[in-house]
């Protein structure tokens, strides 16, 4: 690297590339709009109370926020040194090794797909009241899900990422509605008195604690994406860490507050029964009694748009993940192709849509419950996968800094070390409470079959990576680099000189 000139003279290049760089607020908006707060508060939290039956949810959000903040210390420090910084598996391949990276990539594919497909289960319920109001009736959930599926698939192919301004407006509206609902609930406490009972640690450290912690992790999915904007932020050293910590804090505050006020309005002793009965309708029924019809209508419309926005956002995330793997040739190269006119990752987007369609049809034909068995199981299983990824990434951060040095002791070892311990404990609790998490009988096969998907996928991924190492070393060298792997391929091909790199470039 040549030393850059020390004279601070104006540079057209720096200036032109700095134009449109993102500040902290823009990055936070990107992160939060993927988090779709109303989907979590109205959908995940209420179903969580009903299915898991533990009232410690508000506290769980705060505990998980603390753990994720600790995790983020090392994560953002490493993000500046990693290509393809948006993807956990990139950290894992750099920190632990490429085989672990491919294993993680496969885990991530399953987790993000589960999260996206799960949302099709709740769109029917979300649209129900809105359609009732407009048409005086509503179709079967699967019809609504198929319409949403077609919309998501089409937008994914056309690469219409919803306009940032629209997303920001929706996000602000969602947060305002949540806060207004919270105030309504606080103003109308059950038994006439605001109860802090739900915040007591006794309610969290009960047999279902692992389940509740996974549920809380699910609420934070997306917090990791701030690092994607490292290159486009005004000051990567400041913007990205600050945006990450603030996102975690905002999400934690909003969800902890909302899940607590729900218990205040319903009564901490009755929340589990009421949430089980009313499910996604709970906070709207509360608002109807406390705030009146208009507030409810606004809330219901925003819930619908929130679920839609989350679907589109997760669809695009999943498609891009698949695209990055296709670019690396870890998945077939066809997934790394884009549609010329729109630049959408065409094959990756189509593959995600096909999976969504199959799942919707499977649930429709079998008559399975869309809210609990698709939305909630998909969400929590996906959330558990993301938990595994975060924990492995935390280990990878430590391993990376052990080998490469740099950063302070706190950033490179203490914070990630504490985070790793906490995350492993959460995983252990989650595995032992998986039946509670799903709300199934303690001897149901699902309690091990669903979490077992991940170790199996990881093992297959590792095996695939080892095969690549022996048979296609060029591809092996590209693992974890995402789009940048195209440039790296040239470098490795030169180092290994006589081997004809052309044998590998398959298109």
């Amino acid at each position, binding site marked *: 690297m040549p030393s850059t000139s020390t004279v601070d003279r104006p540079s057209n290049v720096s200036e032109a590339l700095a134009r449109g760089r993102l500040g902290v607020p823009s990055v936070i908006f990107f992160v939060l709009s993927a988090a779709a707060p109303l989907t979590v508060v109205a959908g995940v939290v209420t179903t969580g109370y009903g299915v898991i039956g533990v009232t410690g949810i508000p506290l769980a959000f705060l505990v998980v926020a603390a753990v994720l903040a600790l995790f983020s210390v090392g994560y953002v420090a490493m993000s500046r040194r990693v290509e393809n910084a948006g993807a956990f598996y990139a950290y894992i391949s750099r920190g632990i090794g490429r085989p672990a990276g491919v294993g993680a990539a496969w885990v991530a594919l399953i987790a993000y797909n589960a999260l996206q497909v799960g949302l099709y289960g709740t769109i029917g319920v979300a649209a129900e009241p809105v359609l009732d109001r407009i048409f005086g009736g509503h179709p079967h959930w699967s019809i609504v899900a198929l319409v949403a599926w077609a919309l998501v698939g089409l937008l994914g192919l056309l690469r219409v990422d919803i306009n940032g301004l629209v997303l920001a407006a929706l996000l602000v509206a969602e947060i305002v509605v949540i806060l207004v609902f919270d105030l309504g609930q606080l103003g109308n406490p059950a038994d006439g008195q605001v109860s802090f009972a739900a915040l007591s640690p006794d309610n969290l450290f009960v047999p279902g604690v692992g389940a509740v912690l996974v549920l809380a992790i699910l609420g934070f999915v997306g917090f990791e994406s701030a690092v994607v904007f490292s290159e486009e932020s005004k000051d990567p050293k400041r913007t990205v860490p600050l945006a990450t910590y603030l996102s975690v804090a905002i999400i934690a505050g909003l969800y902890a507050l909302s899940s607590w006020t729900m218990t205040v309005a319903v009564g901490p002793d009755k929340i589990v029964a009421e949430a089980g009965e009313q499910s996604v309708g709970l906070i709207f029924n509360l608002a109807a009694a406390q705030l009146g019809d208009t507030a409810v209508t606004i809330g219901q419309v925003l819930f619908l748009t929130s679920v839609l926005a989350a679907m589109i956002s997760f669809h695009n995330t999943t498609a891009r993940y698949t695209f990055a793997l296709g670019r690396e040739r870890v998945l077939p190269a066809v997934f790394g192709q884009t549609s*010329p006119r729109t630049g959408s990752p065409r094959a990756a987007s189509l593959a995600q849509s096909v999976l969504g369609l199959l799942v919707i049809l499977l649930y429709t034909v079998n008559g399975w419950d869309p809210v609990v068995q698709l939305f909630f199981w998909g969400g929590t299983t996906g959330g558990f996968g993301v938990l595994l990824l975060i924990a492995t990434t935390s280990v990878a951060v430590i391993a990376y800094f052990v080998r490469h040095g740099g950063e302070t002791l706190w950033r490179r070892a203490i914070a990630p070390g504490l985070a790793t311990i906490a995350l492993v404990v959460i995983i252990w609790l989650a595995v032992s409470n998986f039946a509670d998490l799903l709300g199934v009988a303690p001897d149901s096969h699902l309690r091990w079959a669903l979490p077992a998907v991940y170790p199996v996928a990881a093992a297959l991924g590792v095996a695939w990576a080892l095969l690549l190492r022996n048979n296609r070393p060029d591809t092996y060298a590209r693992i974890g680099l995402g789009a940048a792997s195209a440039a790296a391929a040239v470098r490795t091909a030169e180092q290994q000189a006589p081997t004809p790199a052309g044998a590998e470039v398959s298109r």
Partner: protein
Amino acid sequence: MDTPEREDRLLIADEFFLIAHNDTRGKAKLHPAATGLGLAAGLLGELTLYGHITVSGGQVSVIDRRPPADALAHTVLDQLIGESQHRAVNVWLSFLAQSATTSVGERLARAGVLRRQESRRLLRTSVSYLPIDLNAVAWPATRLRALLDRPDPPSVPDALLLGLVVAAGLTREVLWSAGPRAHHRLNVLIPALPAPLKELVGHTEAAVGAAVLRGIP
């Protein structure tokens, strides 16, 4: 390094522009991010082919400061010399990509291949470049297709252009009717490029992929 042998041939970036806008109304066939990056790579490729710069280890280095004949190439070289603190290929690709569609479009307009047209819709003025002779603008794509049908390897500039077409994701536009043999020739062509050009193509593909991952059109 070979220099383009025939004088009547268009420059790399010009041909890339025509392939990416191969349409009777001059409409884009390729999304703006990839178009800009492909054109930027074309401009750097022209300077590399003429021996003014070279690319190695992810860095652009100027090796001949004498002004090139083409005005746009001259401008780009001046920028490279003037801002020598920036050397990373990807920085130059993103910087040149911002203005490449306009600058190459203007160059084609000066050469009499395209006609600049401004259209006002609402408050925005958009500029498009319309073909003057439809055959002339369709020629580069046709020529590349024919090249791949021939058994003998294409010249270095043509191989670079093909490499950039692949890197930008335009393969299907060029090869829509080509057989498996043409696809095979395309596959062995990029690795056979001279090292600086091969690296330029690799960085272009990486930058296009990164733009897709960021979700910026």
